[in-house]
């Protein structure tokens, strides 16, 4: 899919750039101020407001999206660096018919209250489960060379880059464990 060309500022100066960015399966041609972060490009240019700005400095995780399949903090990535890259945001998690298993598990476990960190938690959890599937170790993994066993402690450590002031942490862990067990 390809959206209509964004009407941005013309790239007539050397401090903005044209990039093509694929977001949730849609290609976007964007002319962006070089200073624009991926988070601001998503929110202010593409009106994908699901990705949240909680701290703007990589300290809270609310802006987590998946970039070429990996979870990253979109507030610290300059969009200009992403020409030709692929981003999936919370808006891209659900299937055409219904919620993804993670989304459904978050609802079922009440894994959020105010909901502001939730898109970041979901994208982070999605990426984290892929990392586990690749047997990436974490700080609490006893044996660096053994397959990863996804315990509560593993989930907690791996999700610690996503703060939740409402403190839905145990419900987030439970929701993720549910989905992991079903995989």
């Amino acid at each position, binding site marked *: 899919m390809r959206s209509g060309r964004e009407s941005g500022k013309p790239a007539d100066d050397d401090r903005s750039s044209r990039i093509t960015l694929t977001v949730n399966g849609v290609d976007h041609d964007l002319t962006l*101020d070089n*200073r*624009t972060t991926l988070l*601001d490009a998503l*929110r*202010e240019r593409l*009106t*994908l*407001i*699901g*990705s*949240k*700005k*909680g*701290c*703007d*400095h990589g*300290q*809270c995780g*609310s802006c987590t999206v998946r970039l070429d399949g990996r979870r990253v903090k979109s507030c610290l990535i300059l969009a200009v660096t992403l020409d030709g890259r692929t981003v999936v*945001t*919370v*808006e891209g*998690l*659900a299937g055409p018919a219904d*919620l993804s298993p993670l*989304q459904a598990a*978050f*609802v*079922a476990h*009440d894994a*959020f*209250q*105010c*909901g*502001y*960190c*939730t*898109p970041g938690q*979901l994208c982070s959890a999605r990426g984290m489960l892929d990392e586990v599937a690749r047997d990436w170790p974490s700080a609490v993994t006893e044996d660096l060379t053994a397959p990863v066993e996804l315990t*509560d*402690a593993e*989930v*907690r*450590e791996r*999700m*610690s880059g*996503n*703060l*939740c*002031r*409402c*403190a*839905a*942490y*145990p*419900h*987030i*862990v439970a929701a993720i464990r549910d989905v992991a067990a079903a995989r």
Partner: protein
Amino acid sequence: MSAPPVGAVGREHPRLEGRDKVTGTARYAVEYPVDDVTYGWAVPAAATRGRISRIDTAQTLAVPGVLDVLHHGNAPRLAPGVDDTLFLLQEPTVHYRGEFVAVVVAETLEAAREGARLVRIDYDTEAHSTVLSPHHPSLYRPDTVNPGYPTDTAEGDFDAAFAAAEVQLDTTYRTPAYHNNPMEPHATTARWRDGRLLVHDSTQGSTPVQATLAQLFGLPPETVRVIAEHVGGGFGSKGAPKAPVVLAALAARQVDRPVRLALTRQQLFGPIGYRTPTIQRVRLGADADGRIAAVCHDAISQTSKVQEFAEQTAVYTRSMYAGRHRRTTHRLVRLDVPTPFWMRAPGECPGAYALESALDELATACGVDPVELRVRNDATVDPDSGQPFSSRNLVACLREGARRFDWADRDPTPGARRLGRWLIGTGVAGASYPARSRAATATAAAAPDGTFEVRVNATDIGTGARTALWQLAADALAVPADRVAIRVGDSDLPPAPVAGGSMGTASWGWAVIRACEQLRQRLRDTAVPAEGLTVEVSTADEVRAQRPLARYAYGAHFVQVRVDADTGEVRVDRMLGVFAVGRVVNPTTARSQLIGGMTMGLSMALHEEGLLDERYGDWVNHDLATYHISGCADVERIEAYWLPEEDPDLNPARVKGIGEIGIVGSAAAVANAVHHATGVRIRDLPIRLDKLLDRLPAG
């Protein structure tokens, strides 16, 4: 006739907006599509006290995309005397470092940020005072403490009873500044059209925001509309109109375009309020069995020179435990700092940390089990007012918690349990929080198709209020809940108080239930007309006529910690809370509220501390990398339970409120567990490893 409806109240139900939140479609304050939008960026003062002598905006205005810079010299005028914390960009005076003194408006966020950096401001500075101390020369006695309690109280003769007591405890506890840090920074979208003001605001109550904006801008209230459909947490800091909504409205008027203005995370550390640091002296006089005869709680906290805010720190001690001779006092110092404000259980939270720690110390001193000590000091009538309690289940909470926690097996010896490198300990604390209600209005409307719409300007800041009110409405209408729609979060709805003080569901629910009951009554006699049928109620008279009783929620916290014997690192193995909170409308969201409060108590006990630099007068650790809040790995096992409690003397919803009771006492339970683990009593939070490291028992 349809089948009799199944009651909705008391049943687990996922929150109504859950789907919107997990799909990223729930819109927060600066996420609404707005044509021709601009971006505002607040500029903080770089002086601690003084006056702006000159503002140079030339460099800012030269930034491509910058539209304007508002400051005291050019901003639209506001009405004085409404709220001094909101009298922004009106005067050259600087009251504290970080006070907003200008706003840059630009076409893009990038231009606004850079423009804000380039505003040049010169100040004539004056000497400042920013540190709270117990001997500060300007300590004074405020007229009342938040939200209107007497400043000091006294019953009996504390001094004589304390002097005569077999066991005397005299300790001082300190808590630092805490910053609310909701995940969504305070933010507003404002637009003016034909003299009317529309704002989307991140607030705990849009009714007061509407009223305040109308006053500040000299508008009829009906020309101001404030929407707060989804709010990314508040924890008190969004409980009143705050700077962003005023700055955005000023800026939007100035540039005659819509403005989105979000504070940065760094800007949340001060201007939007914080929990004051406290210094609390607690004295307990008891007999050898731990029965308290004399209790005194003297609390010192700070306020600003902008507006008085007096944290009701010692109020908790007035009604919590028995003791014939009692005294509580509050003293304040006006400093050159931002104005403190509500943070989850203002007063009760820091006050309970002190009193529940002191009770633990008394238990140790008397050799009495700390659960038993609390049971022995249970009160039969409110020691403060002399009124009976509407219900008081503190002892039941303690007993049930002790049972679940296997407390009976506990060896009271401090510093006596070691598992490898870890020292293990357990602690307990009591908790209480007032169960209040405020007047509200609501409407209930029936449609000819058998559906209903209930409207009340409640705000769901993540509490689950929307869902709970929907459940209450369905039962009051006696219809299946899927035929009921609930609308909240818009000042065009019937006015209602803020989400705060654990009063939301009680107050809004009262109006909702009465509206639904009246509608149901009307529908007994008539069919729904084609245009529908709406009833509107106000609960003002009914709330005012409540009979005078002491109404409180209660709780008991049980905590196990482990402390690293080599490093002093503290980890919380387990937190268990048992609560008596009246009826629980939705167990799903209630559990989340309770564990959320308990975790914030853990965070308070171990992690949070605003570090003030006296020379600058602000907190140097003003971001989430350096002001630590508990993360996922800090919360290992946490459980919240509640007792079945039917209290007929509360409100029609028969609820006591659950937003704050979880944090009250939880930090004390952690601190008491750390003492049990190590033998070290830390009386100034947070309990960080450096305070323990050289005091731990040798392995």
